[in-house]
């Protein structure tokens, strides 16, 4: 179930982001949108949802006037010459959870879109206000690119601005410069057929909350080739259980080899000892490790809070 326009606008208010809102009839193309808001002086955007051969998704948001060459973009991402194509409608509905004609950077606030990579036209930076759909086709909101950044950071996305018209020759001496923007995870609903694929009619996601089946994220991470690194950070492995097990994996073989040497007992006979040890020590070790995890998290949390308080967005290094 995706966020609604109202939820998005409420969130923008919460973040104290300035924006202007324009209502108009439903529009499916930039040309139609231009008829209603084109005269107001802001920069219209065209938004594409693209897919690569490994079913990874990209939202490319550009100034309406920017020429986006898919072949060049594909090469810059390290996907080869024809690695990118328009994503099918299902991805729009399931992953971005927006209707047809409504691709927008704001769709990335949905958890279903967490593995989608966002590429923003560098050109937005020089415009005072840029136009995007706020998850619905019958409204356009105008905001500055720095405010868009503020929003994206708040939903855990680092804004990535790209010169979409640049056409560098990609080769051995010139590696794909956008390779870091390729997502590392395979998105949720790429291959799996669901009962929700609507063939012709576009269900309006905005006002009718449907109970969609949330598919569990596949545990298998796509084995990437050397060139593509993840732009989307993998979640840290902070499992206390696993840590304690790993500790025993280190200690056990060492103990077994030392003990069997010194005591002249076979290793197999000692292994039941290890199991007993493990059973008895585990609760205390887990307690200790949890304490360390809590302390680290707390420390980091307060550091992050202070950074934001004192330095705002500038406190965090940019990834470009």
């Amino acid at each position, binding site marked *: *179930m*995706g*966020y*609604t326009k109202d*939820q998005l606008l409420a*969130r923008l208010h919460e973040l104290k982001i300035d924006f202007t809102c324009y209502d108009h009839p439903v529009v499916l193309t930039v040309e139609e949108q231009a008829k209603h808001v084109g005269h107001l002086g802001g920069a219209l955007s065209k938004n594409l949802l693209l897919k690569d051969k490994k079913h990874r998704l990209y939202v490319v948001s550009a100034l309406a006037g920017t020429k986006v060459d898919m072949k060049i973009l594909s090469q810059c991402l390290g996907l080869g010459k024809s690695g990118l194509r328009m994503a099918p409608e299902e991805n729009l509905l399931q992953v971005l959870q927006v209707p047809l004609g409504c691709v927008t950077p704001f769709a990335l606030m*949905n*958890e279903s879109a967490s593995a989608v990579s966002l590429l923003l036209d560098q050109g937005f930076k020089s415009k005072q206000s840029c136009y995007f759909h706020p998850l619905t086709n019958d409204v356009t909101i105008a905001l500055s690119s720095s405010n868009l950044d503020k929003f994206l950071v708040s939903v*855990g996305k680092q804004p990535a601005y790209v010169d979409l018209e640049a056409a560098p020759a990609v080769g051995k001496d010139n590696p794909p410069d956008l390779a870091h923007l390729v997502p590392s995870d395979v998105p949720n609903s790429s291959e799996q057929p669901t009962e929700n694929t609507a063939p012709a009619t576009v269900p309006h996601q905005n006002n009718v*909350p449907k*109970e969609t*089946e*949330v*598919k*569990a994220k596949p545990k298998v991470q796509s084995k990437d080739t050397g060139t593509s690194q993840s732009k989307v950070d993998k*979640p*840290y492995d*902070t499992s*206390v*259980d696993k840590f304690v097990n790993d500790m025993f994996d280190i200690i056990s073989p060492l103990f077994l080899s030392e003990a069997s040497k010194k005591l002249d007992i076979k290793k197999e006979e000692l292994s039941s000892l290890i199991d007993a040890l493990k059973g008895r020590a585990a*609760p*205390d070790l*887990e*307690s200790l490790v*949890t*304490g360390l*995890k*809590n*302390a680290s*998290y*707390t*420390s980091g*949390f*307060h550091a992050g809070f202070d950074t934001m308080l004192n330095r705002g967005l500038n406190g965090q290094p940019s990834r470009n």
Partner: protein
Amino acid sequence: MAAAEQAVGATKEDREVEEEQVVNPWEVSAGKGGIDYDKLVDQFGCQRLDAALVDRIARLTAHPPHRFLRRGLFFAHRDLNEILDLYEKGEKFYLYTGRGPSSEALHLGHLIPFMFTKYLQEAFKVPLVIQLTDDEKFLWKNLTVEESKRLARENAKDIIACGFDVERTFIFSDFGFVGGAFYENMVRVARCVTINKAVGIFGFSLEDHIGKVSFPPVQAVPSFPSSFPHLFAGKDQLRCLIPCAIDQDPYFRMTRDVAPRIGYQKPSLIESRFFPALQGENTKMSASDPNSAIYVTDSTKQIKTKVNKYAFSGGQDSIELHRKLGANLDVDVSIKYLNFFLEDDDELEHIKKEYKEGRMLTGEVKQRLIAVLSELVARHQRARAQVTEEMVDTFMAVRPLPNMFG
């Protein structure tokens, strides 16, 4: 003749026992034979948690089932099957539990729902909200607002010491958090419950102040994900599972009744038996009698004294009699405590068998219990000592939990 009379006498006594058993969030008192859990389950209308369900949980979570499940200490539920069905299909849920911070000292009975909830969080890998009802304690006890808030924070430290995952846990106190979407849900619930109904469920009277009468929605709405927009925005139909002691059932009966009327999912429940006081099932654990329970602040020496002196024994009065007749496990508190806290199933069975058949003496059983409890309490104290004020602030910060389903 005599048999008939006896039969009549028996039914009359049964009825008396029935009438005597009182179970609601503010009062738990047993009839003659202790709490009749079967009657309770029937009376409340919840379902029993059977071995098949325990197996299912173990399979779904790929985790050995917690001893509270293995031993039937969490023994009843409402709609747990539904949550498991959905989980199997990949749909997550969140956990909700809480505490009324009425005193600084927690005893082992207080820890039980938290220990179980920690296991659920780990096994299912789901987020958890923990409510500290400091407002409830202010309304029901003779405390100031400041004292209630302070107790809530102190209790939060013990709760954190139980080992919850900071990346998946949000602790909040009512005085700190009520407002916004949470309050909107409270009012939605309140509008659906007449005073009549509240009196019927909670036993309020016209002499009770309106604070009490208007409190129940506060404990109801954490069952609804929309009460926590910073955690579950856009997930209005996310399910909730509530581990609690069975005396909390009335709150959630009310909640489950209201939920569909306001467009929300009913929360599911998983309910536990009561934890017996040291002096026996029919006595009350009370803050005024420190010997009625083992506190998490007790030293090993205090635990030893309390168990040896006050734990009600089901053993016989003399060793000879004991060897002959064995112990009555139904009333023996040490065995009940071991049931809760001794992890090893085989060892527990062995002790029960030997004790029942008179080969093991009460002293030996108590000795084992003292060792188990001392270890537990010491571990808790160590963990508690590591909890700082900043950690409490962090667990209670209204922050996103991005890995909460990871």
